[in-house]
């Protein structure tokens, strides 16, 4: 189970981690993009973090939808609408909840992933954030369905995320800005997949923090 407090911790950690990794994400987006992903994600989650105190009394679904609105109106670029839609769909699915069961966590990821795929039309293998979000969602669903507790399931999700982001390296991008580079996108890690992995890691860390 994840408490609301842990959800808020998750979002706080996202802000810290995306700030720490701003330069790294920028470098990734320099090699195969326009060098703004680090700044985009930092800007968005900084604003999310600033709003967390006034969201404390809302249910988790409402928190996610507020996060969605903030990301959509702050991030810009491709990642803004995509992550925004992730949290919007997650928020719809988690409407009214004050805490998330294991099953909720898997459903939240599935709703978010489906939103990203609906919005961006990417499939696994296209060298995008979907190459992390998809295997993570499937692993969570599988493990949680098998009865794994949430902390362990998220630990496994992190491993899957790490593998997923590494797996983007040899891919030729078929979506997003990197796709303009064709074969030249090979050999470079995808920035959006990287920020997704970081976000998943933060969820795991939040699950291990105080509830």
């Amino acid at each position: 189970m994840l408490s609301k407090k842990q959800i808020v911790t998750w979002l706080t950690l996202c802000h810290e981690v995306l700030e720490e990794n701003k330069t790294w994400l920028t470098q990734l987006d320099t090699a195969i993009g326009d060098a703004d992903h680090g700044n985009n994600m930092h800007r968005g989650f900084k604003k999310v973090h600033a709003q967390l105190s006034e969201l404390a009394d809302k249910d988790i679904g409402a928190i996610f939808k507020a996060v969605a609105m903030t990301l959509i109106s702050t991030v810009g670029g491709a990642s803004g609408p995509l992550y925004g839609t992730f949290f919007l769909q997650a928020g719809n699915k988690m409407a009214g909840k004050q805490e998330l069961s294991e099953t909720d966590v898997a459903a939240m990821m599935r709703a978010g992933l489906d939103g990203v795929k609906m919005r961006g039309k990417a499939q696994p293998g296209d060298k995008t954030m979907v190459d992390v979000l998809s295997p993570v969602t499937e692993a969570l669903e599988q493990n949680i369905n098998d009865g794994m507790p949430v902390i362990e399931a998220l630990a496994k999700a992190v491993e899957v995320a790490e593998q997923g982001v590494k797996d983007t390296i040899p891919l030729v991008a078929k979506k997003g800005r990197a796709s303009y580079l064709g074969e030249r996108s090979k050999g470079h890690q995808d920035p959006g997949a990287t920020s997704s992995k970081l976000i998943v890691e933060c969820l795991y860390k939040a699950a291990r923090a105080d509830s």
Partner: protein
Amino acid sequence: MKKLINHPDNVIKEQLEGMQAAHADLIKVNFEPYYITRAGGPVQGKVALVSGGGSGHEPMHGGFVGHGMLHAACPGEVFTSPTPDQMHEAAKAAHGGAGVLNIVKNYTGDVMNFEMAAELAIAEGIQVQNIVIDDDVAVKDSLYTAGRRGVGATVLIEKICGAASEEGYDLKALSALCRTLNQNARSMGMALTSCITPANGSPSFEIGDDEMEIGIGIHGEPGIQRDKMKTVDEIAEMMTVGILEDGAYSRILKEWDQDKGEWAEFEYVDEPFKKGDNVIAFVNSMGGTPVSELYGVYRKMAQVTDKFGIKIVRNLIGPYITSLEMQGCSITLMKVDDKMVKLWDAPVYTPGLKWGM
């Protein structure tokens, strides 16, 4: 990084303040969120032409707000699409009761953000259409990529559609014109240098003194290939031939279906240029290349088009759709008929383009 800026965090705000101070007679800059509208306010009864994109491409789009061109423009962070709320505010501020046409350059972020913006406006009862511009021939196919980028044609389309709005085209007719112009246009770009965004402070790619990037976009990203530096004749010939020999191009673009009240997909097939076509030729500086070199490009481009049997009826030469201080150029050819030429010639009075009034 050496730029005429203060703190990188304040670049966009300050440059917009400079634009406002310089062009108070032409434009009104809104600061939270950022958007630019005409100083005279919305034009009642005419379709509001709206565009936007990352900052860093000046004068596009903010410099094209004014009579005969855009009604509103939204600048995002440097090279980052603006957000739906920003575009929605701009559309509301510019709306003159006859609907909004969003000119959307074909980048994943631009398309998605403008779609969400359109949904917000439609939900409030404003008629909207989004037309996607995708003229860059360097990106070969649409199945295994995010599709062709919207580049130089955007400037020509903003001018011609701006005149058409002024003439009283309704949203449907203006959308059709915009669509046709996009299908009529093809572009190719190249770079001698990369550029440095204020937020990052280092070049967007490294490139040697004897190298060039072919098939670039406008966001400082690498092109489709790296070559050894060539002469301007070789470069201009390669780019122009690349445009003229580009074959039929097919892809699916999303537009709003007014009747069904939802997004619908349409397949469009562009025909290649052919002997006898009249074109507008646009030779563009990426920002750091001076106009003198553009004339060297124009010279060879005009020889190639002439040999192909194409007639250049109008041209535009200068820095109009840029990537900060990048040195390089792009060529756009747009097939036009007499009506389009008349619209091109119609008066325009914006910070970045003026004639006829």
